[in-house]
């Protein structure tokens, strides 16, 4: 980013993203009815900030739209306009338009001139309707100041304002010029620029604020009006507003130049009174606190840190392995030191991972809008209720659950919820409710999507599955098995292809992506009552618990989460099929034994399960399989490394890790092995690469 403007723009858009989230949150609160004046204020502030920044960068369309929105909100918060549900609808629509406009500005797309015109008109209508003139507050204030000057001169006060930006104020996309302009609109302004803090040119950092401004302002506005101008730099500057009392003579304003500007002056001041209200100092103190408690760090830097800690974990594993061979009696301190270090490394790792953790809110926040759009498009009524948005999970996970989540929400609205008429007929509230929740349990994150719709129609599902040849027509399936059919590739219950779904990307892709994240998904559905999709996901993708196993001369890592049990079978528990495959009796069922040594072409491996070991793992769809291995080595946390970074995807392998001895070990992709082992073991060169379809599929 060589262009500083680009950098500021990037910061602006980052802020926009945050502001839009808080804006939507505020609107949701308003919608839910649990709002106070502060909510309206924060909603207004968000729009105002976006407008301000957009103005700086010259996004005219964005500014003009935000301006109307801001005016409307301003009247609402000022109490000039009573909030009504109909207005809220308009505000929500306006929010969508604003989001779109910000997105367009960010990507440099030029939207149609009339984009959002309808919503803008709806807002101006509200304003007209209530007789509030649609004028910019600047104009508004300026008009007031202009017209007021002659007649109400006696009501004018002289204010002395000290504005001292903190050095990093610019980094939050604040622009003093805009503030000063706005200040000038309030009345007659005298500006003194204090440059004393300006360092020598070579010491100067362009992005830091060095100037201090002192203003004298003659205005009929009050302290609150002035404070409002500085509202957005609160916490980013020292601000001191002093009311020097009624402004007496126009001459005094000129004369006092000689007297030195900011000495208290008896001639001018009837009763000098500091009016910085205690409430504001409190607000300022609070925002300063927030600033000091978090910093914004480039993701690259965090990634580097995570990588380094990953290396440290490997080194630590190596030391521990070597340490195990040291005689404790001989070097007690060394052994103790290694133990202690291991604990610290583990803690360090947890702390570093926590840096990347972010609330799922960033993903959840996209969903209300989706539901609004869908209900509009499908003529349904739905309300999205979210909980656990603060639940934290690694950034990579939040980045990748967005699409599957959107797809499932879409499904819930489209297939899950009935039309308002059907709902009424079923004795339900016309408005369907979709619950989206997240919570931690047992070192994993659970995300659930529950709707109170019709539930999965098992007859239809079964019929479709049979029609499509996914199940045999006389198969007997239990409820769970039928529900799980919707995860089969090529399955779709949509009777008609709509704009919303039924474009061929189905729940199979959702499940695949969730499994790609090391997660699982399950359904719980009750006819007439609704369905619940539960996802269980790992907190991070960078590290996992693995079981290191030995196969011939190679060591492989099996994901611990998939391992059910390892055992050495008795010969009478093994039976062979005519095609040479072996089955093993396990907990009353036959499970197939997968010869990993064949799939991975490992030499000198133990081929007889009765001499080696069988690790029973759970594959896709809860299918149990037995992997034949020579031996178990140990269970350890492994740092997942990419093979594709420098090579290419290897079938049956999800990645690699580095063991304590510094050697590379491959991590077995259980789902891939499962599909490999169901085909012929002899792999052809031309066999399709499963990853490609995985990454390229886009949700429609």
């Amino acid at each position, binding site marked *: 980013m060589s262009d500083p403007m680009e950098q500021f723009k990037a910061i602006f858009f980052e802020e926009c993203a945050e502001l839009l989230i808080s804006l939507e949150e505020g609107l949701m609160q308003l919608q839910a009815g649990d709002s106070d004046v502060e909510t309206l204020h924060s909603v207004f502030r968000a729009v105002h900030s976006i407008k301000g920044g957009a103005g700086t960068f010259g996004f005219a369309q964005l500014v003009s739209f935000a301006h109307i929105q801001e005016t409307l909100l301003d009247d609402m918060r000022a109490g000039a306009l009573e909030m009504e549900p109909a207005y809220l609808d308009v505000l929500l629509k306006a929010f969508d338009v604003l989001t779109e406009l910000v997105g367009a500005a960010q990507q440099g797309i030029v939207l149609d001139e009339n984009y959002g015109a309808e919503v803008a008109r709806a807002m101006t209508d509200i304003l007209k309707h209530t007789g509030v003139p649609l004028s910019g507050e600047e104009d508004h204030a300026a008009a007031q100041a202009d017209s007021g000057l002659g007649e109400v001169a006696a009501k004018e006060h002289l204010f002395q304002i000290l504005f001292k930006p903190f050095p990093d104020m610019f980094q939050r996309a604040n622009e003093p010029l805009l503030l000063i302009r706005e200040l000038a609109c309030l009345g007659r302004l005298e500006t003194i620029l204090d440059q004393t803090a300006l360092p020598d040119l070579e010491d100067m950092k362009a992005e830091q604020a060095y100037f201090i401004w002192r203003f004298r302002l003659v205005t009929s506005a009050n302290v609150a009006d002035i404070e409002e101008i500085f509202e957005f730099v609160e916490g980013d500057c020292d601000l001191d507003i002093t009311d020097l009392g009624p402004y007496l003579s126009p001459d005094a304003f000129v004369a006092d130049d000689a007297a030195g500007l900011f000495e208290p002056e008896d001639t001018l001041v009837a009763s000098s009174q500091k009016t910085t209200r205690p409430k504001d100092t409190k607000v300022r103190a609070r925002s300063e606190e927030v600033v000091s408690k978090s910093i914004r760090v480039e993701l690259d830097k965090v990634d580097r840190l995570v990588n380094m800690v990953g290396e440290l974990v490997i080194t630590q594993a190596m030391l521990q392995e070597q340490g195990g061979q040291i005689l404790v009696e001989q070097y007690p301190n060394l052994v103790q030191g290694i133990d202690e270090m291991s604990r610290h490394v583990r803690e360090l790792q947890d702390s570093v991972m926590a840096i990347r953790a972010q609330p799922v809110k960033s993903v959840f926040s996209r969903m209300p809008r989706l539901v609004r759009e869908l209900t509009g498009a499908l003529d349904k009524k739905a309300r999205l209720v979210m909980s656990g948005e603060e639940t934290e999970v690694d950034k990579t996970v939040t980045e990748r659950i967005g699409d599957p989540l959107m797809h499932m929400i879409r499904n819930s609205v489209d297939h899950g919820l009935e039309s308002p008429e059907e709902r009424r007929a079923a004795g339900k509230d016309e408005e369907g409710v979709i619950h989206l929740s997240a919570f931690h349990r047992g070192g994993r994150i659970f995300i659930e999507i529950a709707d109170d719709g019709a539930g999965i129609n098992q007859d239809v599902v079964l019929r479709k599955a049979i029609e499509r040849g996914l199940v045999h027509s006389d198969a007997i399936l239990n409820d769970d098995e039928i529900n799980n059919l919707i995860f089969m590739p090529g399955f779709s219950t949509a009777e008609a292809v709509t704009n919303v779904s039924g474009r061929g990307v189905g729940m199979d892709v959702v499940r695949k992506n969730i499994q790609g994240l090391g997660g699982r998904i399950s359904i719980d559905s009750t006819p007439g009552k609704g369905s619940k999709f539960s996802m269980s996901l790992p907190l991070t993708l960078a590290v996992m618990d693995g079981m290191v196993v030995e196969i011939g001369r190679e060591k492989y890592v099996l994901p611990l989460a998939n391992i059910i049990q390892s055992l050495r079978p008795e010969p009478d528990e093994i039976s062979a099929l005519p095609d040479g495959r072996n089955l093993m009796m396990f907990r009353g069922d036959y499970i197939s034994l997968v010869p990993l040594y064949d799939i991975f072409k490992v030499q000198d491996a133990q081929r007889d399960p009765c001499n080696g070991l069988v690790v029973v793992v759970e594959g896709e769809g809860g299918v149990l399989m037995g992997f034949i291995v020579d031996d178990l080595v140990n269970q350890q946390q492994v740092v997942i*490394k990419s093979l594709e970074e420098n*090579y290419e995807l290897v079938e049956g*392998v999800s990645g690699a890790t580095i063991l304590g001895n510094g050697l590379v070990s*491959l991590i077995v992709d259980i789902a891939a092995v499962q599909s490999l082992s169901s085909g012929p073991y002899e*792999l052809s060169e031309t066999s399709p690469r499963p990853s490609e379809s995985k990454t390229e599929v886009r949700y429609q």
Partner: protein
Amino acid sequence: MTTEVLQTETETRSDTDGMTRQYISFTIGAETYAVKITMVREIKGWIPTTSLPNAPDYMRGVINLRGVIVPVFDMRTRFGRGRTEPGKTHVVIIVTLEERTIGILVDAVSDILTIAAEDILAVPDQDANPEYAFMEGLVSVNEKMIAIVKPRMLFDMNKIPDMDLAGNASDENTGDMARAAVA
């Protein structure tokens, strides 16, 4: 066992003289090849690799290069001259190909050559023999021919032409090609 190549130094030197480039030459049996020095990140002694399932036979497996998984290719196998049985003296040249890092297993690194651009001769019949695509040119040093290779063409997994040199080892053309490097 690791020799870091001081890239900055060599680059400055070649910068001062725009017409010359530096190459690192290496041997496979009696043959000598060379690769552009700016591509070489470092030279490592042989360490055992972890083999990957179902990889081509010239793909020896992966190693851990300070936490990064790097594939190692056997240059000898790639040229259809059998498999290298690595010992203490064998080295892996770590080469950067655009965004990827790979290792090339060779017998030994022999020299750093400074070659003027005009001394690099075209590979004969390049169009007729797609196998020659991995050669950038030929150069004569002390009356010995050295083939300058383009590792990207050899090992870029997505781009390499599927050349079955091993199967054609008896074929005169290919055999000569490899021997041409010595002659």
